[in-house]
C-alpha cells in the first residue's frame, strides 16, 4: 500500500476514511489523464492468477494501457498462483468499492465464493478468457472459442497434409481447460482421417526446455515426421530448436498457439514456424467492455471471438520487425457485438 510515510498523523486522521480509500490506489491518474466520456474518477479493479507468461503479461498491459486511455484508475492484483490469494484479492476489491472488476482466473471453481461476494455487492464483473462456474453471475464474458479454434487447426492439418502424414503432438499442462480443448478439438477432426497418424505425444507443461527434450526423443524415435502440433508458442519454439539442431526442418512443419511473443512472430516471418492460432488476452477488450458498462451502454453477456491463424502471409499485422515488438492488437470489442 503506497501510503506516504511523511504524511503527518493528525492530518491523516482528519482526512478520514473516504480519503484513505483514495490513497490505497494510484490517485493521480484520474486527476491528470484526459477524462473521456465521464469516466474520470471511476476505479476498476483487475484480478489475475499469475503473471509469468507473455500472454498474461500482454493481458495486464492491455488493461493498464486502455484504462489510462479512458482516464480510469486501475488497481492491479496478482494472486501469485494461489486460489486463496485470488479470493482475498477479489474481496479486497469489493471492500475498496471499485466501480467494476475485471477478472482473469485459472481457478474458476475455487474462487466461486468470492465471485458471489462480488455479485452480492452489485459490482459489474467482466470476465476474461476462462469462463466461470455455473451458479455465479457476471456482467460480460469475453472469450475465445478454444474448441472451435482447435477444430480449425484440425482442418488446417488435414488440408496441409493432404490427408496423410505422421504428426507429433506436444501438450501443455494437464488440468488446463484450454490445453484439453486444444487437444480434443484438433483430434476430433484429424482422427477421422485414417492416414493422419499421431505417432508420438509429449507432455511439456507449456515449458520450452521440456518441449526441446521431448522433441529430441521424438526425432530419435521416428525416421520421418511431417508435422509438430504444439499447444503453445513456447513449446513450438522448443520443438523448433530440436528440429533445427537435428537438421530436419525441411522435413516437417510446426504450429502453435498464442502469438503474443515477438520471438515466435519473428520465427513465423522467417518461415521456420508455419503459424500460430492467435489467442487474444482480451485486456484491451475487457476495459472497453467495462467502460461500456459504466456508461450504461447496452452490452451482451457473452462475446466469443474467433482465433485468426497468424502465418507468414499476415504476420506483419501482428509484428513490427523494425522495432522487434509485437503490435498492440486493436480492440475487437463492439458493444452490440
Amino acid at each position: 500500500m503506497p501510503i506516504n510515510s511523511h504524511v503527518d498523523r493528525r492530518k491523516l486522521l482528519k482526512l478520514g476514511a473516504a480519503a484513505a480509500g483514495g490513497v490505497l490506489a494510484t490517485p493521480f491518474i484520474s486527476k491528470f489523464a484526459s477524462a473521456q466520456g465521464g469516466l474520470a474518477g471511476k476505479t476498476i479493479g483487475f484480478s489475475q492468477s499469475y503473471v509469468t507468461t507473455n500472454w498474461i503479461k500482454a493481458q495486464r498491459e492491455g488493461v493498464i494501457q486502455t484504462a489510462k486511455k479512458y482516464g480510469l484508475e486501475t488497481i492491479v492484483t496478482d494472486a501469485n498462483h494461489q486460489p486463496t490469494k485470488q479470493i482475498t484479492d477479489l474481496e479486497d476489491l469489493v471492500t475498496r468499492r471499485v466501480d467494476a472488476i475485471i477478472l482473469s482466473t485459472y481457478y474458476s471453481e475455487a474462487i466461486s465464493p468470492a465471485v458471489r461476494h462480488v455479485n452480492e455487492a452489485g459490482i459489474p464483473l467482466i470476465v476474461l478468457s476462462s469462463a466461470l462456474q455455473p451458479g455465479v453471475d457476471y456482467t460480460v464474458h469475453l472469450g475465445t472459442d478454444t474448441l472451435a479454434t482447435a477444430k480449425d487447426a484440425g482442418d488446417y492439418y488435414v488440408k496441409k497434409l493432404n490427408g496423410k502424414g505422421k504428426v507429433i503432438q506436444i501438450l501443455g499442462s494437464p488440468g488446463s481447460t484450454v490445453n484439453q480443448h486444444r487437444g480434443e478439438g484438433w483430434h476430433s477432426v484429424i482422427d477421422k482421417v485414417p492416414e493422419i497418424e499421431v505417432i508420438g505425444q509429449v507432455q511439456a507443461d507449456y515449458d520450452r526446455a521440456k518441449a526441446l527434450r521431448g522433441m529430441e526423443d521424438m526425432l530419435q524415435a521416428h525416421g520421418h515426421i511431417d508435422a509438430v502440433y504444439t499447444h503453445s508458442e513456447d513449446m513450438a519454439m522448443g520443438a523448433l530448436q530440436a528440429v533445427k539442431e537435428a537438421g530436419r526442418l525441411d522435413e516437417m512443419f510446426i504450429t502453435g498457439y498464442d502469438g503474443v511473443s515477438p520471438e515466435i512472430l519473428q520465427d513465423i516471418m522467417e518461415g521456420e514456424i508455419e503459424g500460430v492460432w492467435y489467442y487474444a488476452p482480451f485486456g484491451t477488450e475487457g476495459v472497453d467492455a467495462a467502460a461500456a458498462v459504466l456508461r450504461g451502454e447496452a452490452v451482451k453477456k457473452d462475446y466469443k471471438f474467433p482465433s485468426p491463424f497468424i502465418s507468414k502471409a499476415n504476420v506483419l499485422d501482428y509484428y513490427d520487425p523494425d522495432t522487434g515488438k509485437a503490435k498492440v492488437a486493436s480492440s475487437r470489442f463492439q458493444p452490440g457485438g
Partner: protein
Amino acid sequence: MADGSSGEMIAGGSAWLTSSRRMLVHYAVTGSNILALAILLAVGASLSPYFLDVTNIFNVMRGTSMVGIVAIGMTYVILNRGIDLSVGSIVGVAAILSAGLAEYGVLGWVIAPVLFAGLLGLGNGLLITQLKLQPFIATLGMMIFARGLVYVYSDGSPIVVSDAPSAMRFLGSGYLGPVPMPVIVFALVALIGAVVLKSTIFGREVYAVGANEEAARLSGIHVQRNQISVYVISGLCAGLAGILLTARLTVGDPNAGTLFELDAIAATLIGGTTFDGGVGSVGGTVIGIMILAFLANILNLVGVSPYMQMLLKGVIIVLAVVVSELRKRRV
C-alpha cells in the same frame, strides 16, 4: 565410483562400527543401482532400435545435465543431513540473471549469476546455523524468496538473449568431439564433487557431521562452517545449472528450474544417499539421475503416453527406495 569410505572414522570409535556397516549398505545399494541401470539400458536397447545410438545417449545426457549438476550439490546437503528445497528457484535466479547480464560478457552471464547463486546458498547456511532454523523451513523460505527475485527482476517475462555471445552458444549447444558441452560440464562437476567428498578433509567432515553431529563436534570439527559450506556448494551448483539452461535455450525463462529440487532429491535418494545423513556418494547420485533420464527417454521412444509416464516414474522412485531399504536390512 563409491566414495567416502573412511569418512566416519573421525567421528570416533563406536560411531565407526555403525558407520562401516552403513557404508557396506551403501555399496550394496550402489551395486544394485548399477545393475538396475544396466538392465534399463538393455531393456531400452531391445525395445527400441534407436535407443543405443550415440546421438540419443548424448541427447539424454545433455537434457539431464542441468538437473544432474543440481543433484550433485543436493548430495552434499543430504549427506550432511540437510535438505535444500531452494535449488530450483536458485536455478531460476541464475538463469534469468545470465540472460539479463549477457551483454556484459563472461563476467555478466557466467560469473555474476553463479556467485549470486552461491550467495543465496550462503543465506540458507546462515539461516540454518545462526538462526537455528530447520533446513526444510529455511530453504522453503529461500525457495519462495528466490523465485520472487526472478519475477521482480524479469517482471515475469522471459528475457531473450538477442545476439547471444558465441561462447554462450558453444556452452549450451556446442560439442567437444561427439560430446555436448553441458555433458562435459556435468561430468567435470561430478568428478570434482566425488574427489572432494572422497579425498579431502572437508569431504570427510561432510560425512562425519551428517552421521553424527555431536560426535563430529566433539572430535573438533567446525560443524557450523561445514554445514554452511554444503549449502554454498548447493547454491553454486544450482547457479551453474541455471547458466547452462540459459545457454542452451538462449532465453532466460522466469520459470526455469521449477521442480528441479524434486528431481534432484529423487536422484539422490535413488542413488542410495539416505535422509539419515552420513551415507551416500556422488557416484550413486549420478547413477540415480541417469536412471531417471533414461527411463523417461525409453518411455518416449516406445511411445508410452505422457500421463502413464508420470505414473511409472512415481512407482519407480518409490520402488528404488524400497529396494535400498530391503538391502539395508539384509546386510
